[in-house]
């Protein structure tokens, strides 16, 4: 369902970004990059409250004509950004939430791996497969799309 999934580190560099290459992927990279500003806005807006009270799920960051961008931030300021196709009207908010939850869980598993150095690019195959499963659902709905390849080796 997601067209692009990105994991951004605390220092706002990407740990993982992957998109379905229906068109140039750079566009998604750009969207994710610009959405970081919105994420920071939302975080700072809630910043007065305790971090505990802050909602992890940020919701719709901003919609564009074709896409909608959703955000999610963990307590360690690791951000998950998901770009979904606007034509997917059936996507409900709670579905997005569940997708982020899955992302978060997979990210935690990656973190638990002692061989993973925080700050490295996420190269875990399990994480990849999980993201693919999230994105591959698009295939069932839109036969024109193809599952994307990892942008980074």
């Amino acid at each position, binding site marked *: 369902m997601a067209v692009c999934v990105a994991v951004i580190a605390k220092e706002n560099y990407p740990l993982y970004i992957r998109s379905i290459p229906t068109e140039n992927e750079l566009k998604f990279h750009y969207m994710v990059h610009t959405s970081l500003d919105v994420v920071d806005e939302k975080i700072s807006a809630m910043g007065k409250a305790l971090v505990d009270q802050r909602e992890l799920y940020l919701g719709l960051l901003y919609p564009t004509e074709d896409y909608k961008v959703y955000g999610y931030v963990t307590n360690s300021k690791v951000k998950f950004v998901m770009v979904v196709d606007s034509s997917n009207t059936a996507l409900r908010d709670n579905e997005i939430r569940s997708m982020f939850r899955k992302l978060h869980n997979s990210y935690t598993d990656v973190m638990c791996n002692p*061989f993973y150095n925080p700050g490295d690019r996420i190269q875990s*195959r399990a994480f990849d497969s999980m993201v693919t499963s999230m994105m591959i659902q698009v295939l069932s709905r839109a036969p024109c799309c193809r599952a994307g390849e990892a942008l980074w080796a």
Partner: protein
Amino acid sequence: MEGLTLSDAEQKYYSDLFSYCDIESTKKVAANGRVLELFRAAQLPNDVVLQIMELCGATRLGYFGRSQFYIALKLVAVAQSGFPLRVESINTVKDLPLPRFVASKNEQESRHAASYSSDSENQGSYSGVIPPPPGRGQVKKGSVSHDTVQPRTSADQQEPASPVVSPQQSPPTSPHTWRKHSRHPSGGNSERPLAGPGPFWSPFGEAQSGSSAGDTVWSGHSPPPPQETWVSFADTPPTSTLLTMHPASVQDQTTVRTVASATTANEIRRQSSSYDDPWKITDEQRQYYVNQFKTIQPDLNGFIPGSAAKEFFTKSKLPILELSHIWELSDFDKDGALTLDEFCAAFHLVVARKNGYDLPEKLPESLMPKLIDLEDSADVGDQPGEVGYSGSPAEAPPSKSPSMPSLNQTWPELNQSSEQWETFSERSSSSQTLTQFDSNIAPADPDTAIVHPVPIRMTPSKIHMQEMELKRTGSDHTNPTSPLLVKPSDLSEESKINSSVKFASGNTVDGYSSSDSFTSDPEQIGNNVTHQRSHSGTSPDNTAPPPPPPRPQPSHSRSSSLDMNRTFAVTTGQQQAGVVAHPPAVPPRPQPSQAPGPIVHRPVDADGLITHTSTSPQQIPEQPNFADFSQFEVFAASNVNEEQDDEAEKHPEVLPVEKASDPASSLRVAKTDSKIEEKTAASVPANVSKGTTPLAPPPKPVRRRLKSEDELRPEVDEHTQKTGVLAAVLASQPSIPRSVGKDKKAIQASIRRNKETNTVLARLNSELQQQLKDVLEERISLEVQLEQLRPFSHL
């Protein structure tokens, strides 16, 4: 160097050889020593070897890069085939057999060569050919491997996972392996039943003799199961590594390493030998793993923390990425620590990887951590008939082994479910689910809305409910009336009657239903009111209607509906007032003697009254209470007439005016009517209570209501009015003894008026009902359209 074109088999073979020679796991440079020995094993004259080396460019470069190595191998093949050594012969010589290398390796390689030529997919043979050196300072006394190589010739068990392939290879013979392994524990060099090692291996054997550390390690292991090919290689690489490591002081190396590498060899052996499952952990392997575990974590039930495990497995010199993947596979519960089972699985995977097996995408079943209670039942090697390695070793063996305890299979699901469960503190989407639920209910078959306890609200009904609230609050001071007023709401809350379910789904009814009550059976009136209530629930507000006021008794509920019926049925406030006044106007038990009184009077009245009276007498004998009620009616009517004339007048006047207005206003009118009625009813009792006979407590009215209900139910619509009148008459009964004459006339007049207004309102009601039906139909059609449209936009 010219470009080198290699066939697939050649490519694989060469890469294996290269990795074999790549003792430092650099993947770029083949150790000179190894390469030299390899070439020597090719049984080529030395000068040919030198020539080859020159040709491939190694002499120029001083080392064997991959390309040089490949070229050299090709040249070896060329030389072995008898072709003259030329640079161009690399590519020109077609159908060159793979280079053969003598000695232990030779046989195996020849076997491999044969297998390669036969089936290029013998990846299993890779493991047999060139086990990558574990990279740990393992001292394997098993230089005996050399010897074993020869016996191995006969016992060809190259492809443990691909029995289909390589028919030329004979099945493994345990004696060989046994012999081989027996050597290991024995301390190595002492026993060499298989003498005559090739020159290739001899240096290793000598090297191994110098390694005592590994011997001790090895002695701890029982003879591993058949894995001839592996044994040798397992031994030789360690010995080679030993050679290189010796200068580095083997002693410094942790036993862990040595043991690990030894285990590696063992495991690899086992893997290659087992036809069923390359991922099986044999007993020796398992024992070895357990020992290794103990070195890190003495408590076998404890965990190895991630950092320690990282250190340990880093020694295997596998790339971090692969180690990371192995970790992901083996850390089953994702806790960042390894239990014994997880550790064994991880170790096994490391060994496999070191020996060339590609890592599976999912943890093979045989490696899954067993649950404690299944330890006994789950045989580690219990993988019957699992020829999972038919093709690439990268494919994990079929995970549907029947021998696998079901519990293990449930682990992934449990794992996943636990993952699902271990969500971070997030606001649950229960609200969304709730809304979804509601949205599911509402569009559901409206006719079945009854069963849903979800209160349905219609916006108009809000006003109605407010009215009800007002009425309730307004009549608080009058006890008798409040239950009466309350009861309709009670009834509406509780009863779900099919007849007017349709109205329930229609969110616009409210007033309609109230008007509906005029024409429909009095029983239905209550239903409509009920449905009004239910409607209110499904309105966008989604708030439950006010809690039903306390019902005095179950019987009262029905009677309350009756009251409402009367209230609505009789438009005129007079009658309604009379009706409402009934409960408070309950006199002391009316005497039967009084019963004929009103009956007598009634025939004098209009036809409707006559019919009423006709009914009442009929009903009187039916129920003993009837008489009471009739008396009540008369009394109440008389009282009401006295006090409520003005109001009665008002109502008919109001009603015609309202009738002229649009249905909506009339709807409101109907509501206001009921409101007025209620109010008048409220006021009436007050008046009545002040003035005339003290009204008995509710039980009396209950009786009356009961009776009127009973009589109403069997009656048809036309009786509605009559019952209303009757009720009025009954209510007025107590007052009979007072002013019968006056009341009678007043009653009759009021009855007439009420009847007129009743008919008018009934007509109005039917019109509104029709409108309601139309609107509902429209709504349904729109919904259907919406549903039809939705899938298209859904994409």
